[in-house]
């Protein structure tokens, strides 16, 4: 096994209060199906961490663990050094507002129009007047490059790229400290992929946000990543091997000697060769 070039992740050190999210030896199974095993990872404040890996290696599940939409079946998730499992439900709900989550298929509420979708979190917070909410909604929509006229449309009337941008505006409405992006460019054309990549960078330039991006898309990796972490499906891991097989910069990932990282970073060809033996 070639792990010579693996940059040790801070994942094995004790979590600190300066890390918005840390995972330590986390495992997750659904019934008999094990998705995550022995995953340790730290997200450093202010960085844009891109998680790559084959489909089914547990990237999206990891994001859901990070925001506590799912609980781990073993190991611990920490928010700013505090164990999530020890927090009360109310504390978790409150802290979760510090996260923004862009869902894979946008997950806009079908029965609400665009305005109500973006305003949802603001209304739930309950501390703003209607005029204030309208102002924030229009501001966020402008930030993602959408006109205020779109407000009265239902999600079903929008294209995939527009839905993604509305979902991004909704996730940004509460000014999150951590943005989690679940495959933000999947299913989009190359032009829209470029737009979304630029938006992810722009979001980060405008505010002191920490970002975690799950993607298969190499253009996203190149455009946004400060650090790349690669997860390997557990079926291919040695018994005691950690699931995050690589952590380093994009350049380091591109230069990696590990065939698994190289296969991913250089497209599918090497991966096919590996499968063929």
């Amino acid at each position: 096994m070639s792990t010579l070039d693996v940059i040790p992740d801070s994942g094995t050190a004790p979590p600190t209060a300066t890390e918005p999210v840390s995972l330590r030896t986390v495992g997750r199974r659904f019934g008999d199906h094990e998705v995550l095993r022995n995953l340790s990872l730290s997200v450093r404040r202010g960085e844009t961490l891109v998680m790559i890996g084959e489909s089914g290696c547990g990237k999206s599940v990891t994001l859901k663990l990070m925001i506590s939409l799912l609980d781990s079946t073993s190991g611990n998730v920490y928010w700013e050094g505090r164990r999530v499992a020890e927090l009360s439900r109310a504390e978790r709900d409150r802290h979760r507002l510090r996260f923004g989550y862009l869902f894979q298929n946008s997950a806009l509420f079908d029965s609400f129009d665009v305005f109500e979708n973006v305003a949802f979190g603001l209304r739930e917070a309950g501390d703003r007047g209607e005029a204030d909410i309208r102002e924030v909604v229009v501001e966020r929509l402008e930030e993602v490059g959408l006109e205020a006229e779109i407000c009265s449309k239902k999600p079903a009337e929008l294209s995939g790229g527009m839905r993604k941008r509305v979902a991004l505006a909704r996730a940004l409405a509460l000014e999150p400290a951590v943005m989690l992006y679940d495959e933000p460019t999947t299913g989009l054309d190359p032009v829209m992929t470029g737009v979304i990549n630029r938006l992810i960078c722009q979001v980060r330039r405008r505010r002191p946000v920490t970002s975690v991006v799950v993607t298969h898309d190499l253009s996203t990796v190149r455009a946004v990543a400060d650090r790349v972490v690669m997860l390997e499906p557990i079926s291919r891991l040695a018994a005691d091997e950690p699931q995050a097989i690589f952590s380093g910069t994009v350049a380091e990932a591109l230069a990696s000697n590990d065939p698994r990282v190289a296969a991913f970073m250089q497209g599918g060809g090497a991966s096919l060769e590996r499968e063929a033996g």
Partner: protein
Amino acid sequence: MLDRVESVGDFSMFAFGVLGQLVSGRPRRRVLLETMYVVGVGSIPVVVVTGVFIGMVLAVQGYDSFHHLGMETRIGSVINVSLVKELGPVLAATMLAGRVGSAMAAELGTMRVTEQIDAIRALGANPVGQLVVPRFLACFLLIPVLTIVADTVGIVGGWVFSTQALDVNSHFYWAHSRAFVTAFDVFAGLIKSVFFGGAIALVACYHGFHCRAGAKGVGRAATVSFVVSFVAILALDFFLGLLLNTTYRLAYPQLPSLL
């Protein structure tokens, strides 16, 4: 077997969660009104049509036996007692389970599959409070109204068919009906309907929330929700009927009873 026990436990936890949310906050007015419109106004046509037919069917089926005994004017009492105590509430509940319950399970199932339920949580809201409470309230509050509609149109249907097609004397038809149908019968039917409505909403929302992935999962949630609701309606009908009859006999021991 263990799975069954586990799902009963899950369902109970879910129901308590709904009760908790009912107590802790009021649903958004607009969402509640929209849901009530779909549940209430949307169900009226189908309840009216089925109610009329049930009333007429009772007349058709009961007439021969009563005619044979020369007591056809008493048919009104049988039709009306059956309607207000049993058929009206059960019919309204069945229609609600079929029309609204499965749609709720499918809608919430789709929301689960497309991560909209996760999105609600990620935005700091409680999905049970947002999605289940308005649906529960709409079913719980409106099913008595639908039951009254089913009772009324059934009574009218039975009466029209008996007097116009079967030539039963209208005056005696009503006289016998009044003698047999008590306010308690109507009340018992309405009490039962409230339980039916609550059960339908809880079962539908539970199956929607625990929907498996994909279109197949959503379809299955809708089907299972209807089947379970229907069984729950009949089981509740039996046990509540028993309970209400016992209560009635305890309150009025001097009155004759079938049991």
